[in-house]
């Protein structure tokens, strides 16, 4: 449905998006993940037809976003970051305006607007002014706007930003729901956010696509970089034993009390199976040093750490790279 090849966007001397290529198939729910400033919004804006690319091609359902922008835009329901809305309008007025703008036939307009409001859960506030809505409801109005013309593709830029945990859960459920009828592209800077709803993830870092794959692979990447071990015994001895294990780069302690787990960081050069072997050696070393191993679990590394693995750059706060 979306095909992006060698997309580049420059602002003056600054390269915001650098040679990014990916495809999104029909019915997929794709998560676009990266830290702030990675080029997510810029890429989505180009796909949605708001910005023009400096280089490369973007096709939406076969229509080029530059040469055939009109048809491309008709096929996308786009929710911009921060959900800009007209504050002086009432929700239903705004959605009727958007539906007319997106060429929903007059006869179908009222029904489609009601349908979109129902799906996004804003029927209760249909006659309230947008200026008086809470952040969560504004977000939902933006969602209703994105789906009101029933486009085959829905593009949502940071749909969960600024929401409280309950609202985030609801938003995720909504996005999952959207995935049944639409091809969905969602961006976020929090990896766990897309875990719940995306089938595939694209990782963007400094304007480059550093990894893409099904959610499971990315999850494995997160899980594999470190190990949390709860162990009884003299700390100094045990940590020294761990550091002698091949494949262990560094040992740190989470918290100060005796029950706090020890975090074992593996060397970044290790592959998945090698990490599993290293895990076995760690446990053997701990037992050998007289420690009582009570719990061993893979540590979920932060998105920054995943990126540092992928880009072979030190993560922030890491000294022994």
């Amino acid at each position: 449905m979306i095909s992006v090849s060698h997309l580049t966007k420059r602002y003056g001397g600054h390269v915001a998006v650098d040679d990014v290529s990916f495809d999104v198939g029909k019915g997929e729910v794709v998560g676009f993940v990266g830290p702030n400033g990675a080029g997510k919004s810029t890429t989505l804006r180009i796909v949605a037809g708001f910005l023009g690319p400096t280089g490369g091609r973007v096709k939406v359902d076969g229509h080029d976003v530059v040469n055939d922008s009109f048809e491309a835009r008709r096929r996308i329901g786009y929710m911009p970051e921060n959900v800009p809305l007209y504050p002086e309008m009432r929700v239903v007025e705004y959605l009727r305006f958007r539906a007319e703008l997106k060429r929903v036939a007059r006869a179908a307009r009222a029904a489609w607007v009601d349908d979109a409001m129902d799906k996004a859960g804003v029927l209760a506030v249909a006659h309230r002014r947008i200026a008086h809505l809470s952040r969560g409801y504004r977000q939902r109005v933006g969602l209703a706007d994105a789906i009101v013309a029933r486009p085959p593709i829905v593009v949502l830029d940071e749909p969960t930003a600024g929401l409280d945990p309950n609202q985030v859960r609801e938003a995720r459920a909504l996005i999952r729901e959207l995935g049944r009828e639409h091809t969905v592209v969602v961006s976020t800077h929090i990896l766990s956010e897309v875990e719940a709803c995306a089938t595939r993830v694209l990782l963007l870092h400094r304007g480059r696509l550093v990894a893409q794959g099904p959610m499971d692979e990315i999850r494995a990447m997160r899980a594999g970089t470190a190990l949390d071990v709860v162990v009884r015994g003299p700390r100094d001895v045990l940590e020294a034993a761990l550091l002698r294990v091949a494949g262990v780069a560094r040992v740190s302690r989470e918290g100060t009390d005796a029950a706090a787990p020890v975090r074992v960081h593996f060397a970044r050069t290790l592959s998945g199976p090698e990490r599993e072997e290293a895990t076995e050696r760690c446990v053997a070393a701990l037992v050998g040093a007289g420690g009582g191993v009570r719990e061993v679990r893979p540590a979920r590394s932060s998105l920054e750490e995943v990126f540092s693995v992928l880009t072979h750059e030190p993560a922030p706060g890491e000294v022994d790279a």
Partner: protein
Amino acid sequence: MRAFWPIFKRELFAFFVTPLAWVLIVVFLIVQGMHFFLLVDHFSRATDVSGDETPLSAFFGNTVLLYLVLLMLVPAMTMRLFAEERRSGTIESLMTAPVSSAAVVLAKYAAVLTTYVAMWAPTVLYLVILGRTGALDWRAAASAYLGVLSVGAGYLGLGLCASALTRSQFLAMLWTALVLLALFILGIGEFVTREGTTMHAVCAHVSVWAHMNDFASGVVDSRHLVFYGTLTVLPLFVATRAVDAWRWG
């Protein structure tokens, strides 16, 4: 162009649902009402009324009030058109809908021009009052309103263009006011420069004062119409190109 109608409706709605349009219209009508009162008062006292000076021609031409009011009102009316949408980000939703830049520019322009016409509409009452108490040349009145429409169309075009060129409403207002003031001052040059010089010809050609005097006395000069037509079309064209250009910024 199918996007024209919804955007036009929304713009008008945005104008009249916020206090801005009402404040502007009230200020405008108070100033024009006082102006009209003073004129009628003046003419009713005058003992010898020369043939070519009528309340009608004095209301629309030969007065600095009309331009002063336009100088203040037009920038305030046009400043928000694009600048506000760019600041708040709604321009992103607007331009990612299947709309053409030309439709967006024309719809916004038509909306502000409609507001301008609505602002002037109550002044027709003054003419009705004049017509009841004495003879009124309705054809001259029509010509005067044509002048008001032409000048307004040109000024609003410039204002819309300024709003498309900056993100700040304040700058849009300032630029519009400065350009209109410059045009006005250049027109004043008609009275300062010597007749026969190029400068005089240029000043006379752009002088809104001279234009409105002609219109108010029933003279429809095609040069004036072409001048204001250009003043409308050119800024709208530049604004359309500016809207296209944001994409590549």
